[in-house]
């Protein structure tokens, strides 16, 4: 059963935020209206969260569709639709909630950052320019999650890359121009590879629709002959997405970009944007090239474990809080890839839930790092931290919740992602002998424990021990309330996971139909 909205709310959430920011820029010159702008933005960005939970979770429809459809069949492209289904439900939730709260969080942070830049005699564009870019960035990520067409997805992807590039270049830290360029080049290599792959596919099959007008998957892979050079198409798509996702080996751009971006942007880049690549692998690669995915399943699983463990170990040796979080994101992407590459219902569903839990947990942690940057004189070196819990008790509690999301400790939604991924893994590789069992046990325990190890050691380094900063105290303002709401939402999702898991099960079942028959 599908549900077509009466009003084009999904297009509104994609188009309205940037337009609103442009309008504010044109109409008002006073900066005091940023508060209003951020509230309005947050409100609009939250719409998809409510729509998706209401229709998919409570009403149990399988698709929510926007009434406006762009017909580009004349150009051989297909239809541009905006749709939410069970697979994209956790993704939409994650993007919607995090972008909305970070939008409010940005006010204080960006005012501070722009002041700071001004003191450094750097002429950065003002706060409205920031919001134009930020809103376009947020909306484009929602667009990616709604996309039903490969070209449509690619356009949104490009918008997100360009806006985030500009945000890093204008407001970033350190050698921001070089890092922004590095980010731009890397992600565009990924983007170009993805584009090559989908063009090959689209030109050969006569369309780029993943989900057709009748809301069924467009499964024309059977017509596609993947012998010879054509095998490069799925590889190219996968490689492109893996660069976006920062899988081990092609991850090197991420620590720079995510550590040096302005913190609200890091809070979006790190969990939301890169995770979408994992979603795209589930959505596109599985639909387009099921046999290819089955054939490289084990390679992907090994790669995922390598990413989790490698990212975790490198994170252990980081001293910069944000760079530490960036490496932790690499490690977390391993979990998402692991879930997807098991090619089981549970694994793919677990990966999607892990996207949500990582979005919440990592955004909380980045936002907390931003609190110290704004309030404790730019503090981000973990060697200089310690004892911060005494000064910032609420932030310490929230950071613990953030780390619990990453390590999958209840009562946070992280447990469900971890559990489902593990079920998927065991279903895909059911141990048949002692050696199997030992291999799986060692892989799982060492991969999952490394997350807990870096989480709790970092927790100790940052928050515990003797108090080393002076002259600051925790003032619970709107800036910090956003973090509180986000952290609590992770606990709420833990309790209300039933609303997400059922639509997810059905949609994943539909998605994996050709593989599990």
């Amino acid at each position: 059963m599908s549900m077509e909205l009466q009003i084009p709310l999904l297009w509104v959430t994609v188009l309205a935020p940037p337009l609103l920011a442009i309008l504010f820029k044109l109409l008002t010159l006073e900066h005091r209206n940023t508060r209003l702008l951020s509230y309005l933005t947050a409100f609009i960005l939250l719409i998809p969260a409510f729509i998706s939970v209401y229709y998919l979770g409570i009403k149990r429809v399988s698709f929510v569709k926007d009434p406006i459809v762009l017909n580009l069949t004349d150009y051989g492209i297909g239809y541009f639709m905006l749709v939410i289904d069970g697979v994209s439900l956790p993704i939409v939730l994650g993007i919607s909630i995090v972008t909305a709260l970070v939008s409010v969080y940005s006010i204080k942070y960006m005012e501070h950052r722009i002041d700071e830049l001004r003191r450094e005699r750097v002429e950065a564009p003002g706060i409205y320019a920031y919001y134009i870019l930020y809103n376009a960035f947020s909306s484009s990520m929602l667009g990616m999650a709604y996309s039903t067409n490969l070209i449509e997805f690619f356009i949104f992807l490009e918008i997100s890359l360009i806006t985030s590039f500009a945000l890093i270049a204008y407001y970033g830290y350190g050698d921001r121009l070089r890092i922004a360029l590095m980010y731009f080049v890397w992600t565009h290599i990924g983007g170009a590879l993805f584009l090559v792959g989908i063009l090959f596919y689209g030109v050969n099959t006569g369309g780029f629709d993943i989900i057709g007008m009748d809301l069924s998957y467009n499964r024309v892979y059977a017509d596609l002959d993947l012998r010879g050079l054509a095998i490069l198409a799925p590889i190219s798509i996968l490689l492109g997405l893996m660069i976006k996702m920062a899988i081990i080996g092609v991850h090197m751009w991420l620590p720079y970009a995510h550590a040096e971006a302005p913190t609200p942007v890091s809070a979006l880049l790190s969990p939301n944007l890169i995770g979408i690549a994992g979603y795209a692998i589930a959505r596109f690669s599985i639909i387009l090239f099921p046999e290819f995915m089955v054939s490289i399943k084990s390679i992907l699983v090994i790669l995922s474990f390598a990413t989790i463990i490698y990212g975790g170990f490198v994170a252990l040796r980081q001293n910069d809080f944000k760079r530490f979080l960036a490496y932790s994101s690499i490690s977390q992407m391993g979990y998402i890839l692991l879930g997807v590459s098991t090619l089981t219902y549970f694994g793919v569903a677990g990966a999607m839930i892990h996207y949500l839990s990582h979005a919440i947990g990592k955004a909380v942690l980045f936002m907390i790092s931003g609190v110290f940057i704004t309030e404790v004189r730019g503090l981000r070196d973990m060697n200089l931290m310690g004892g911060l819990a005494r000064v910032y008790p609420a932030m310490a509690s929230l950071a613990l919740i953030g780390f619990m999301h990453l390590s999958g400790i209840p009562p946070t939604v992280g447990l469900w992602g971890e559990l489902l991924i593990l079920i998927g893994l065991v279903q895909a590789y059911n141990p048949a002998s002692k050696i199997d069992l030992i291999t799986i046990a060692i892989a799982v325990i060492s991969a999952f424990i490394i997350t807990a190890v870096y989480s709790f050691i970092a927790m100790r380094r940052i928050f515990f021990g003797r108090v080393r900063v002076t002259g600051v105290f925790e003032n619970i303002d709107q800036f910090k309330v956003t973090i509180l709401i986000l952290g609590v939402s992770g606990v709420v999702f833990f309790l209300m996971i039933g609303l997400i898991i059922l639509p997810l099960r059905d949609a994943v079942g539909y998605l994996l139909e050709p593989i599990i028959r």
Partner: protein
Amino acid sequence: MRVMAEYESLFPWIFSWLAPFIGSFIIALGLLARVRDERFYGYTSVFSILVSAIIASYASYKVLSEGRVIYSGGDIIWIPWINVTLGTYFDGLSAIMSLIVSWVSLLIAVYSIKYMEGDWGYGRYFFFFTFFVGSMLLLVLADNFILMFIGWEGTGLCSYALISHWYTDEEDKWVGKPGRYALGFPMFFEPTHSGVRAILFTRVGDLGLLLGIVILYALTGTFNIVELVNKAPEWLEPLASKGILSLLLITLTLGALAKSAQFPFHEWLVTAMTGPTPISALIHAATMVKAGIYLFLRLTPILLSGALLVHGEVSSLVTQELYNYFLVVAVIGALTAFMLASMALVSDEIKLILAYSTASQIGYMFLGAASAGLLVHTLKPEIIAEGLIAGLSHLASHAVFKAALFLVAGWLIHVAHSRFIDPMGGYAKYMRLTALSLWLAGLSLAGLPPLSGFFSKELVIHISSHAAPLLSGLAILTAMLTAAYTIRLVLRVLHLPPYEAGVRHKPGEAPSVMLTPYLVLAIASLAIGLSWPIASNIYMRAAELTLALGVGYEASVSLSTLTLIVVSAITATIATVYIVYYVIKLNFSELIAKNRLSRVIYDFLYDRWLINPAIYAIFKNGGLRVANTALDIDESIDYTYHKLTPSIGSIIANYIRGVHRGRTDYYITLYIVSAVLIILLALIAIR
């Protein structure tokens, strides 16, 4: 036997574990609202645990008197797809367990109200305390592995938070002798270090547990423990025929071993002493470490009665695999019991001695229950019941006397202003009731009849003597060591003069809010022992009503040769220690200082058999080495992409740029050469 489920309504049974969670939620709101009144936190906690305790008592009464299991909410699905229900399951085992957990926790909570007075983390303390109790009750009462795992992780999290409660790491909150190193690794631990150790050590086991649960789910399609009993052949057979049954069970039991601080995971528990003393009491007596042995007690009947259901060729395979599994657990249990008891002999920190004894006593519980498993080939359900009762009754006795001991220790540390026993001494004349409590609880730990500790310990030794005589010999030896270190501690603290001058305040009796809890517990430990015929009857009844068991075992102690050996061994030890320590007043430190061999032994025991340095050398240093290598690799990847590639690019660019020299003759020459080349190529192409 097949278990039929009849569901009762969700209320009031769900509040048996939900009440503390609600309590901790209210406390969290209070913390957010910055409520300053300490009473708000303490009373909310006590009240919510009291609700649990009342419901648990009512449920236990109902279960034991009506002789049927209470299963509520097994049809209320919380998480669809994986069918996680909100089931609360009171059978014989979980009823007794919930009774112990809730009442002992309640007494400790009351004690904490006074003990923690004026602490800067008062609200946070009670938040985690209450959450801890809720998690433990959830773990005990859950009808499915997922709910149980949530409780399981909750206890891990709360223990982490409470062990590192004083997270500013002042030296008086450390554990171990500051400045002492073994093999280059520090043997003293700050609270936050201990906290990290606690959560990481146990998390390794938790992941094994989770993996085990998930593998069982993949086979049976259910997380429900009751259904797992009915489906026992379905998962026992394939696992046994693949030859992975014992290995899988060990993976699953890793969680239990880690939580219950069995070798080699015991290290987290002994450094967990950095938390406030009531937390030590809570962790050791009511929650956390009891979780592991509880899971094992839960599993044993399921496995063994499942083995009775398997027929045909696989049957012997299943039996053999189960035997191997139980042998591993029994050996670990006996080894831990002995190892930790030997460490307690030389320790000079009061809480550390008690901590060693906890891991040691839990070793007994594992040994007792696993011994039933070693007798799997007898195919007698009564044996399973005997093992279960041995484990459970010792768990109960231990909960009561260990809580009392820790609460007394909390007061003594407060009086002496030191966690070491050397500045303590001669307290008997200042605090009679505290001294009485310490004596009662200590003798119960030592296993002297007629205290409850004697009966339960005797049960363990009895069943293990049938299953594995060698291990039961070790258990008797451990019982002697236990008696020795306990009596030494009691004499040292209560009757001998202080060994070393410490801060001398006027010692006195504890305030009644603190005194009452431990006095009650100490007397209870005597009362349970005196009324052993009644108590053993309750245990028998509980075993009859335990999931997958349905058979009881008469747990009264008969006067056998073994009993005589045990009693005389313990009594002789107590007498020897009394004479050596109190009458002759042998100076051990001189002895150790003079004799080289005794020095080596002393150091070996004091440094906990050097297990901690070994773990640190392998995992901490090894991990750091891997991390450094990974960092090096990362830097070289960084260099390759962002330095090497661009510089190669710029070198190539320089060469190509060399073509454009800006000289006309040069360009004309190039133009002609290229034109000729193109024409030639075109000609070839046309032909």
